[in-house]
């Protein structure tokens, strides 16, 4: 029984923050409804409870910013402009994206809010969501806000290599979407890894500066690339020149064939029919001898082996074409690469 009680107690304790957030949210919603019903005093009381340090409920940064926003608006309605500005500033400090919808808020409220924005300088950036990006067709958008007119610079930095990719340099006022096409400064896809995006802004009115940072991990999602063929080795090519001994060898072959031809009648013919007559074979023997001599001269003057040269060219061309095809396939795969961007908490350890 004691164990069961302990478990129930632990469950209640664990559930508490959710309940608390729910109570804060409900209180805020109720205060907003009262504000919209022009029951400003009651709304103020509820909003003060929400932001009070004595509040028993947990209040998130966004809830606190929303409470300050409606406190500011309420103060503006009751004519307390300075207090309204203070509350609006508090809202902007916590959430620079805070804004007043002209359809819901009156001119005095918006005027006070505008003044608060002028007095305070802050930059904010919306957190990223995990996204898959086709760099050929899509862009990654960073939503940035500055509370008033400012110069804004933004750049990405590859945390491991330190490579920087400029993203924006110019003026800004209010909310702005900065887009990135996924490419590094050299026009290639940004390498995978962890990135830090730094947004720096300097107020055009006060000279104040502020910055904000985002972290994300970038992965390439594409099929594996093929390796190109290694260079052709010398032993894979045929010799393109005859050795010097080739020329005399042609002569030996020619004379050898001539001599062999002349010997045929003696070797094969029957002596009773043929007494070694060589009239007919002499023409072949002479042709063989002349061929040997001519081949010797030709070989001596020209040692290139045309067939081997052509074959080597064919092999080299085939090799280059194979590599070109591999490169083309790899290019195709690279073009199809998608970037997977995952928000990260901060600098990796």
């Amino acid at each position, binding site marked *: 029984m004691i164990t069961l009680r302990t478990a129930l107690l632990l469950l209640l304790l664990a559930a508490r923050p959710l309940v608390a957030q729910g109570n804060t949210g409900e209180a805020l919603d109720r205060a907003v409804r009262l504000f919209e019903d022009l029951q400003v005093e009651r709304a103020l009381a509820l909003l003060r409870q929400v932001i009070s340090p004595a509040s028993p409920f947990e209040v998130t940064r966004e809830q606190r910013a929303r409470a300050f926003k409606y406190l500011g608006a309420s103060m503006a309605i009751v004519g307390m402009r300075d207090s309204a500005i203070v509350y609006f500033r508090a809202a902007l400090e916590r959430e620079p994206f805070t804004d007043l919808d002209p359809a819901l808020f009156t001119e005095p409220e918006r005027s006070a809010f505008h003044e608060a924005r002028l007095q305070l300088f802050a930059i904010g950036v919306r957190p990223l969501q995990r996204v898959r990006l086709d760099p050929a067709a899509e862009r990654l958008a960073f939503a940035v806000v500055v509370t008033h007119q400012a110069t804004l610079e933004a750049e990405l930095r590859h945390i491991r290599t330190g490579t920087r990719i400029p993203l924006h340099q110019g003026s800004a006022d209010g909310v702005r979407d900065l887009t990135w096409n996924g490419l590094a400064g050299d026009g290639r896809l940004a390498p995978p890894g962890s990135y830090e995006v730094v947004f720096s802004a300097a107020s055009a009115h006060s000279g104040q500066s502020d910055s904000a940072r985002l972290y994300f991990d970038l992965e390439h999602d594409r099929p594996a690339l093929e390796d190109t063929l290694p260079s052709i080795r010398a032993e894979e090519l045929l010799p393109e020149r005859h050795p010097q001994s080739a020329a005399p060898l*042609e002569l030996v*072959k*020619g004379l*050898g*064939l001539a001599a*062999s*031809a002349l010997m*045929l*009648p003696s*070797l*094969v*013919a*029957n002596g*009773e*029919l*043929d007494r070694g007559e060589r009239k*007919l*074979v002499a*023409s*072949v*023997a002479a*042709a*063989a001898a002349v*061929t*040997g001599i*001519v*081949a010797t001269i*030709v*070989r001596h003057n020209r040692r290139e*082996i*045309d*067939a081997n040269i052509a074959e080597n060219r064919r092999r080299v061309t085939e090799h280059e074409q194979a590599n070109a095809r591999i490169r083309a396939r790899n290019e195709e795969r690279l073009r199809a690469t998608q970037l997977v961007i995952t928000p990260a908490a901060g600098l990796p350890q």
Partner: protein
Amino acid sequence: MTAVRGATPICWLALATLALFARPAAGQRLHVEAIGALVEHRVTTGQAPERVVGTAVGVGIVAPLLSWLEMRGRLIGGGLAAQTPATDDRRFGEMEATASVTPLPWLAFDVGTLLRSYTNALARQRWFAMRVGSELRISFGDGRVLGTLNGALMPLVNVSGIESPSISLSSGAGLVYRHGTLHAGLVYRLERHDFPPTGTARRLEQVSSIAAAVGIAVR
């Protein structure tokens, strides 16, 4: 022997079919050639040798079927004039088919059949022979010229009207020049046929020829 002779047309038909449908190996092409030959025929039966000489013309075909297999066919004919007394002129015709296997670029083994006839005013003598031999191939100048030296046994020879020879040999030497699709060749050939002795006499025959051929690659 009748069975062997009956098989000859089949061999020729097979050769013609192969030549017709052959798909030569890469870089090899079917060649046809015109042949002109000077032929000498010598015969003795124990007396003074008879000698006839003449020219013959014909056609040939060389069909590489595979990188290592080649078929050749030849058909020639002509007239031989007597060069010795008491010798008749005769007409001469020859048809030959050979298959060559080339295990090495410089060596070929071949088998072939030969049909030959000698005809004069009185009679016709027919020869049928099968030959088995080898050929040494000598390449000159990057293969543009090919020299050949061959020898063969003729283990099966049948001659109409007389007993078959007991020894039949052939040998030859030649050169073939190639240039593009054209080729030209010069081939010497010598055949020896020794017949079994009949009493004191022994019949001996010899056919030698020098043939020139000019051909072209047709596909």
